[in-house]
């Protein structure tokens, strides 16, 4: 079980401050929804969680240890687009992570190791309902199937933390609900911590155990550069859907408990 601590985190690009003084601690096994207006820095935050970007100030700890400064298999990710490899079939996409671990030079498994990886991957595919499409290429899958594949691909490595950047934005409502179910089931089974960025508040509250909103506090044009977004509301959801109440941001301190 994993606890993520975000301490006094700032991020600027040049003289443009994007994120300002972000602080929170997550309970092990949390499902955290990140919401906020476009351009407020949600993806930037995820990139820092991944290690793809370095914070300008402050730090992120995982179970008390500063996180590795580059992407690693303990943090899985699903992007809105380009999340699966177009040149591999669904099954190959899922097996890939296992092959990387098992074969540093060839990047491919053979013989028994391969059969094991294959079995594990097929099971994973079954978990997301893609066992019928194991031998199809991503371009032959619908958007919803591609996102389910991306989830299977990320989860087969059993990461401690999963980062989702608007993973369901492109799906239509019916398929979206279906993927939500799969996501929740896997989260409960695996006990990992999930961060999910979404634009859809009802999705945020339906899935998250906690909803954190980023926004700028100061929006006067002359202040835009110097001040970034920070946590403007932070709600525990306790597993049931609560409608958004953006007018009463919970104090930061309450969240850190």
């Amino acid at each position, binding site marked *: 079980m994993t606890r993520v601590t975000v301490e006094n985190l700032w991020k600027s690009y040049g003289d443009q401050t994007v994120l300002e003084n972000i602080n929170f601690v997550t309970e092990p096994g949390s499902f955290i929804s990140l919401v906020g207006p476009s351009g407020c820095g949600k993806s930037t935050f995820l990139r820092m969680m*991944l290690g*793809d970007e370095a914070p300008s100030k402050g730090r992120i700890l995982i179970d008390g240890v500063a996180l590795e400064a*580059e*992407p*690693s*298999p303990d*943090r*899985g*990710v699903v*992007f809105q*687009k*380009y*999340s699966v*490899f*177009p*040149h*591999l*079939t669904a099954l190959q996409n899922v097996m*890939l*992570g296992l*092959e*990387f*671990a098992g074969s*540093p*030079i*060839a*990047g*491919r498994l053979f013989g028994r190791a391969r059969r094991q990886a294959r079995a594990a991957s097929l099971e994973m595919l079954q978990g997301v309902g893609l066992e019928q499409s194991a031998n*199809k*290429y*991503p*371009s*032959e*899958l*619908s*958007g919803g199937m591609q996102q389910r594949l991306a989830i299977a*691909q*990320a989860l087969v*490595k059993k*990461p401690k933390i999963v980062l989702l950047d608007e993973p369901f934005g492109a799906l239509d409502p019916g398929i979206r609900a279906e993927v939500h179910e799969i996501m929740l089931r896997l989260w409960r089974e695996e006990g990992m911590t999930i961060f999910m960025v979404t634009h859809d508040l009802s999705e945020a509250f339906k899935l998250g155990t906690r909803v954190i909103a980023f926004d700028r506090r100061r929006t006067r044009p002359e202040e835009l550069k110097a001040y970034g977004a920070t946590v403007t509301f932070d709600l525990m959801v306790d597993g049931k859907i609560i409608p958004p109440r953006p007018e009463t941001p919970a104090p930061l301190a309450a969240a850190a408990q």
Partner: protein
Amino acid sequence: MRRLINRRPDAVTQLALMLLPFVIVVICYMVASEARLSENPNDKLLPGWSTIAAAIERMAFLPDPRTGNYLLWSDTVSSLTRLGIGVAVATVIGGIFGILQGLVPYFRATFNAFTGVLSMIPPLAVLPILFIIFGLGELAKVVLVAVGITPFIIRDLALRTAEIPHEEIIKAQTLGASTWQIILRVVVPQMLPRLIDGVRLSLGAAWLFLIAAEAIASDSGLGYRIFLMRRYLAMDVILPYVAWITILAFSLDLALRLFQRVAFRWMYRGNGL
């Protein structure tokens, strides 16, 4: 009356239109040839069909009295061998450098400007230097072809590699891939079809360099024959040779495209439903 832009020829019209410019060229040739031959029946510039046919028979279907070879075929074998090796070498080097330049920041910093400058040097101008360094054998010709097209292939592939969505590279890392594994399993397979595109684009230049190299030092090859015949203005041989080179170039291009389709099915399956 619909807009021109919205009008599509039917299949028959399409075929007729396609043939039209070729037919016009042939007619123009015939008229001009006729005119010149009626003035001077020995004119070599625009020979008549029968002269050309005789030349084709001589070059392609009768053994050369001196060497006993069928010249067109032995020339073709020589040229295609050189072209093939040169292009293969360029493909391998271009593939390796292109991918590394597109993917690894240190590599890019080292070689980007250099390959940029290299690609601007006109290879014909350094031909003498190449011949001096590589001698005049087959090696020099192969090297000229390779030197001529490698910088282009590198630059093209480096750009394409840099276009791989950053998300894919991040994703591979979260799956635990090392740099080497990323290259092997993520980048190379996706870049192979692009590399073939790059090779196809540079085939024209490759032919050019091959012909230029064969013009200078050779005793066989399509370019050699054309330059030898040029001394005598033997257009009855040159024209079929040019047509033959065109057919070969076209077939090579087609073969590469077909290979791409067969070997990289993932690019052509479905359409992102």
